[in-house]
């Protein structure tokens, strides 16, 4: 049996039944990582052998000891007849933006390269308590600021397992790649503007951004606190449901976590899609972006193969009894990125204040004359270009003289974006949708260095995903096909507040209905050398 190809659901089931032991699963995952991950990301990678270019490089740090000790605990529990948990023996990776007690937590930044937190993030703790095995911390864009993983201070950054010349997306690129490359079954990610869904789509895996507040943010190193969501990456929808089930629920240490009861996500999957109303919107057919010289708005249609995949999925669901509602207006979607530029930068600049070289993290070793030197040099040397750019922009936008023009206005537009969703999902409204079906990204994975350096263009790769962050609603991406170069296409299901059960149910139905499609049998490039079990 190929242990690394098993789903989390199957793994836990077999471990709990005593058919597999957790130690073997940990060893298998470690072997897979050794075989295909290559050198871990580091601040001083030196010159790499050319073979490294074909590796995944998802991990910054492999926590072998931790995984093995967790496996031993699961195996001991089973031996002693104790409840081992819903994720017993399931290998997981953690985006290196989550604090794990006693484990270096870098945020992929020089600033935190040596930071070891004294506490563990709630979401991580819930996974561990459910018997998951933490295989390591995976790479991301520095402080999650990016959509390609390339801005990580820990190089080499992650490659796309389907084609290692391409980026895995970001910022949860290490998470998506580690799942696609079968190094782990599940990964914990974060999504502020699309940071789970865009890399999940690029890497051909399932990614869920839950409703804001559904999963605790405690222990997530904040980017934009009002937009940050903790979510999951997996290879199928059932695993996503399972992982959400474990993580969801209120946390007394996060005031913004919801106290609403958690749904039964796995049971929801057993229902079919008959009678569900699924919307398509013309506002998700193109990317809109301004010309920064003239201010004129240009549009670029979504890549044709991506659009076709969405329509194909709609047809599949319609054939299974879902009702497809076309032409649902989501007119404020196009303002998602400009609004995001303002809100996320303002919050990010503030959230990054604490990295000042005083208490923890990077402090300059240069001679300093005064406090300002300490700040200026520590921050100047510790942060890479993307955080610096975001700090500058955030400082500018929140300055008293600009705040009403930008920040306050952005909050108003954010409310309009939210109202689009409220109208679409309103049971008394014109559309009363159960979900909106859209592309997850406008294009498939781009090549390394193709967009890096153009911070604005990079940001626009989140246009299909960012609106649900503004609105707070849940959104699921799942594989919907491959483009002609063999790169994965993601389709997105957006639900109403706390409607995770519904979008998981639709996503699961689509998976079941499309099992026989040829693209389903394709495997990522990095797995093609493997002997099939």
């Amino acid at each position: 049996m190929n242990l690394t190809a098993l789903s989390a659901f199957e793994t836990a089931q077999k471990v709990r039944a005593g058919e597999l032991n957790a130690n073997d699963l940990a060893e298998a995952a470690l072997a897979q990582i050794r075989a295909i991950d290559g050198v871990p990301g580091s601040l001083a990678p030196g010159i790499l052998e050319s073979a490294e270019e074909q590796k995944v490089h998802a991990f910054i740090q492999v926590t072998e000891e931790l995984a093995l000790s967790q496996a031993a605990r699961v195996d001991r529990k089973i031996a002693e007849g104790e409840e081992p948990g819903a994720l017993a023996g399931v290998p997981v990776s953690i985006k290196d933006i989550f604090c794990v007690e006693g484990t270096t937590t870098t945020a992929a930044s020089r600033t935190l390269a040596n930071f070891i937190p004294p506490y563990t993030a709630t979401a991580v703790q819930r996974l561990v308590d459910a018997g998951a095995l933490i295989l390591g911390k995976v790479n991301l864009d520095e402080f999650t600021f990016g959509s390609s993983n390339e801005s990580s201070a820990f190089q080499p950054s992650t490659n796309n397992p389907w084609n290692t010349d391409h980026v895995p997306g970001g910022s949860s690129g290490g998470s998506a790649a580690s799942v696609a490359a079968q190094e782990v079954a599940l990964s914990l990610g974060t999504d502020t503007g699309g940071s789970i869904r865009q890399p999940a789509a690029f890497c051909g895996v399932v990614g869920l951004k839950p409703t804001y507040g559904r999963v605790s943010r405690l222990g997530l190193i904040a980017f934009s606190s009002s937009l940050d969501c903790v979510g999951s990456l997996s290879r199928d929808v059932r695993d996503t449901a399972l992982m959400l089930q474990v993580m969801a629920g209120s946390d007394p240490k996060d005031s913004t976590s919801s106290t609403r009861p958690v749904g039964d996500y796995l049971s929801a999957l057993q229902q079919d899609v008959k009678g569900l109303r699924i919307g398509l919107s013309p506002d998700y057919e193109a990317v809109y972006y301004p010309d920064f010289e003239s201010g004129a708005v240009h549009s670029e249609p979504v890549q044709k193969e991506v659009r076709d995949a969405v329509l194909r999925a709609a047809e599949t669901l319609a054939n299974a009894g879902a009702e497809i509602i076309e032409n649902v207006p989501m007119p404020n979607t196009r303002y998602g990125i400009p609004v995001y530029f303002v809100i996320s930068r303002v919050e990010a600049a503030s959230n990054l204040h604490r990295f000042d070289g005083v208490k923890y993290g990077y402090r300059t070793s240069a001679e300093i004359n005064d406090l300002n030197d300490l700040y200026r040099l520590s921050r100047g040397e510790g942060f890479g270009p993307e955080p610096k750019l975001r700090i500058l922009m955030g400082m500018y936008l929140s300055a008293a003289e600009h705040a009403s023009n930008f920040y306050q206005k952005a909050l108003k537009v954010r409310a309009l974006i939210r109202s689009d969703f409220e109208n679409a999902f309103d049971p008394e409204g014109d559309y009363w949708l159960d979900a909106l079906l859209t592309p997850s990204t406008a294009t498939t994975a781009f090549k390394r260095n193709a967009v890096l350096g153009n911070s604005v263009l990079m940001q626009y790769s989140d246009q299909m995903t960012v609106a649900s962050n503004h609105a707070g609603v849940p959104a699921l991406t799942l594989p919907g096909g491959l483009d002609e170069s063999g790169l994965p296409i993601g389709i997105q299901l957006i639900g109403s507040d706390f409607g995770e059960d519904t979008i998981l149910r639709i996503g699961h139905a689509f998976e079941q209905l499309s099992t026989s499609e040829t693209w389903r049998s394709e495997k990522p490039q990095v797995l093609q050398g493997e002997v099939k079990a």
Partner: protein
Amino acid sequence: MKDYEVIIGLETHIQLNTKTKIFCSCKADSWGDEPNTNICPVCSGLPGVLPVLNAEVIRKGAILAAAMRAQINPKSFFDRKNYFYPDLPKGYQISQFDEPIGKGGYMDVPLPNGETRRVRIHNLHLEEDAGKTKTEHGMRLLDFNRCGVPLVEMVTEPDLRSGDEAAQYLIRLRQLLRWIGVSEADMERGHLRCDANVSIRERGSTVLNTKTEIKNVNSIDSVRQAITEEARRQIELVESGGKVESFTLDWDADRSKLSKMRSKETEADYRYFREPDLLPVVLSDEEIETIKAGLPELPLARRARLESEYQLSAYDAEILTSERSLSDYYETAAASYAAEAKSVANWMMNDLSRLLNDLGKTADQLLLKPENLAEIIRMVDEGKINAATGKSLLKKVEESGKSPAKLVEDEGLGLIADSDALRSQIEAVLAGAPDEVASFRAGKESLLGWFVGQVMRSSGGKADPKRTREILLELLSQE
């Protein structure tokens, strides 16, 4: 010299006396703790932590707002005040800004000249305290213990007119804070801190001239002195043709001197925005009404009532309302002995105050209950014990917890008022002093006092002096 008027506004920081800090479960008061021993990931600003609002902070903040007659905001918000300073571990302070818990309000401050000054409040907002920085041996040392201590910042309008008035305001504020139980208000421990904005103008003018801000004035005397000193400096400066510039001044209490800290030409931009990690603070009409209804009678109102209801002097009423527990004590005792409420006040002003001072207790901490005090006074007034015994009983009740009547009985402290017993004692005294009896009868009536003294001595002080005198006169007049 022209006639100048001094214009003063005070910015006070009040440490609420909650058990825990505002956003974490560290204890709020670190007085006497070693540096950085009362901290956690939340208050020391580690990456990934989130604030969780202490509901008690909201409750106490709202009580203070109600006591200041401020408008309690049904929906207030926390914002981030962004700035870099080493003792601010997050690089921003979580503070209320444009929608604070209380807006407006006032406090009436009685002045020594009998007038009352109404000091208006601009607003009161809740915030977290920062840590402490000190420089030692060329190193900058940080103590985060104070980070996250709940504060109310309360800013007055420029309604005060002298250092003395500012001092009076603080005295009344301190009294109020303790009275309503929201702060220990101990200035030495930094529970009540004060910055003063001072400017001058010609009397009669209504303009507000450039002001200076005095920081670090952390005792009532310092406030009085620093403001008086700064007003004098500004007047001299203007009189000599100079111009007041916007400074921040530091008050050195040891040397009673002001020194310039920095000029304040540009306002810092704190880039305020709503704290996304906290929800809005919502108080329902019902909750606000409950808070208002639960407010005790405030010190000035009670002072006035004590004067009118018990015919106390202004001075007595003032002393008895210096602390809420003292005035509660008084009213309970007075209710137990309503006929002599004034006498109860006298006992409290003298003997009970001394007892409290000696023990370092507040009235509510005494074992000697107000009913006990009333009982003791009543026994004295009824001649069951003499005044000296009554006074000594205060301490005895406090130490033993026994009732006064029981102590009098057990220790035989009661006066001998029983005529037969007293009569025989007096007869014995007269029998032992035939010469004096003869002198008295011969007309030396001033000896009566001497006889009383002898009886007192022989009875060990327990003879009722009034009855003794009566019986003496009776026996001495017989031949």
